[in-house]
């Protein structure tokens, strides 16, 4: 019976592969565990069969809890981890096949915005030097051109007057200003893709919105593709067109933002949404519904659907034995959950 079900092609969800800027295909990132330094002791399956396409100019959010593998996925996309299986394809070329020079050219096209701005900036370099570094590495030889591009990058992230910021060291800046410098550094080589790893989680609420708007503005003016990695669903709406929900190494639901927030399909997505509060005094009068237990070990993930031990709607003999393929309850919405198999699945 199971084999009769044709898994939905991911092409339904995303643009056709040839139009994709970035294409992640069957990506596995496993880390080997060793006993006594040489004996094999299994794998940490941080990313386990992840596929998606990203078009130029498109912003997606990858939402998941800590330890779900979202950082490993991000590092594989940045070319920092070699995939165990599967591939990351950027503009038709496989990232893991790049040699050192290709990789440098690739990284010039992919900007990275780190989570902790202070940790991401070298403490002994001035802002001017920090921003000049990528230009030097990528062979921009004319000092006047470098200086002009540094100024332009600072203007773009709205650190003005630019002259005031150039000679400053990171510790002299506020958290929001530091994050702007990190964004300027990611933007200075005019990348096509920005990967932002929890770019606002270390910042105060009032600054968060400012930084998200800045990123959104840059994305629109430069037609950038953006991968926004976060655990906070409430900020996603203002930033991304699509959301991918990640659980225990897999993308379990992919949909447009409004679609996912209004009609979440996967029980885990439901749980995430229910656990996210809006400020409302009524919250204090009710208990939240939270699925029992904790995310599974990525060394020995549960068989079948990885969420089934915590899922109230798990179907015995199905969810605990067979890995759910992606079903499409509606066009553009993919969900890896047996509840959505077939036409009469619950909405």
């Amino acid at each position, binding site marked *: 019976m199971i084999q009769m079900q044709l898994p939905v092609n991911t092409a339904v969800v995303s643009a056709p592969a040839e139009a994709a800027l970035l294409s992640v295909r069957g990506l596995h990132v496993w880390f080997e565990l060793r006993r006594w330094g040489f004996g094999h002791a299994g794998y940490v399956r941080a990313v386990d069969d992840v596929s998606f396409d990203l078009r130029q100019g498109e912003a997606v959010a990858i939402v998941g809890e*800590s330890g779900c593998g979202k950082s490993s996925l991000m590092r594989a996309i940045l070319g920092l981890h070699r995939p165990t299986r599967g591939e990351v394809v950027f503009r038709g070329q496989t990232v893991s096949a790049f040699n050192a020079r290709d990789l440098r050219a690739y990284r010039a096209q992919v900007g990275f915005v780190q989570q902790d701005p202070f940790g991401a900036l070298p403490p002994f370099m001035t802002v001017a030097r920090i921003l000049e570094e990528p230009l030097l590495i990528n062979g921009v030889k004319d000092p006047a051109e470098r200086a002009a591009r540094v100024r332009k990058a600072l203007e773009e992230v709205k650190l003005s007057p630019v002259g005031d910021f150039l000679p400053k060291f990171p510790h002299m800046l506020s958290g929001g200003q530091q994050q702007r410098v990190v964004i300027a550094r990611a933007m200075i080589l005019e990348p096509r893709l920005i990967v932002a790893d929890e770019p606002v989680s270390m910042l105060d609420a*009032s600054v968060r919105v400012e930084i998200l708007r800045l990123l959104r503005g840059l994305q629109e003016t430069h037609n950038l593709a953006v991968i926004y990695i976060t655990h906070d669903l409430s900020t996603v709406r203002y930033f991304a067109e699509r959301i991918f929900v990640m659980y225990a190494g897999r993308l379990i639901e992919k949909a447009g933002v409004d679609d996912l927030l209004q009609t979440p399909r996967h029980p885990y997505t439901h749980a995430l949404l229910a656990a*996210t509060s809006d400020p*409302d005094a009524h919250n204090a009068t009710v208990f939240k519904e939270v699925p029992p237990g904790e995310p599974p070990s990525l060394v020995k993930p549960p068989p079948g659907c990885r969420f089934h031990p915590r899922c109230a709607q798990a179907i015995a003999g199905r969810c605990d034995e067979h890995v759910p393929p992606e079903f499409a309850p509606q066009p553009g919405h993919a969900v890896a959950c047996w509840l959505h198999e077939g036409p009469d699945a619950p909405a």
Partner: protein
Amino acid sequence: MQDTALLRIEDLKLHFRTAQGTVRAVDGVNFQMGFREAVVVLGESGCGKSSLAKAVLRLLPRNVQTYSGRVFLDGADVMRLAEAEFRQNVRWVRMSLVPQAAMTSLNPVLKVGDQVAEPMMAHYNVGKKDALGQARKMFQHVGVPADFLERYAFELSGGMRQRVAIAMSLVTSPALILLDEPTSALDVLTQANIMNVLKRVKQQMETSFILITHDIATSSELADRVAVMYAGQIVEVSDAPRFFAEPLHPYSRKLMASVPRLRSTQAPEFIAGRPPSLSDLPGGCRFAPRCPHRFAKCDQDPPVVEQAGRQVKCWLHA
């Protein structure tokens, strides 16, 4: 006069001596709260909210320049007590703390059960066996399996460690627990779990809470009342229903408008400008440089205005 408040703070000041000059982290805070009440102290980083907790619990660093004012706990002025007496009879007996980063505040070489039992042995002269029995009871309250008593902190997940820290604050049945950012480093589901634990503790035990946080959405999970802190001072105190529906102080309003919401399409807005440095505070209203409603009077220090049971430190309401 009989004091009906559990905690009453009068003109509390805590200033630090630093290379940049005097940092006025807590600068004239007045505040009171009742029994079995949960008060949220809201503020952005650097507003002095963690220092307020330190001042109340008298956990002072060495570079204190000024520490003054009065703190009444259940009618008794605990500021006047000698340090030894405060430690023996107040801290962790009448009030305790769940520190920020409970992840790292647990002792890595002690079993968590022993750590939770320790306050009982230190303050109540209880034998280890009874203290561990009490710890086991607390684990039940916060939803930690009893066999975790034998584990070490590194063997627990973030959520479990936070529960252990809460159990440790509860073990002596204090009247008041201060929680400093108890959920800010946790995942959404874990956060929801911890807030459930706190709600249950609030229902089942005669405990009051001061929850210090910058996370407005999560704070609404527990708050009976909300106090908003800005630049070392409390600028608004209000009951939670009215606060979340309609905050009074311009800063509170801006803060509420900055929260991204899941269930509304209203776009969040940011607050222009930066909070002032606590070592270089502006005269008059400290929010005035960022306030859209600023007028001539704001150059003078605003009074605290009482308005139908709410307090707001703002000339607009005077």
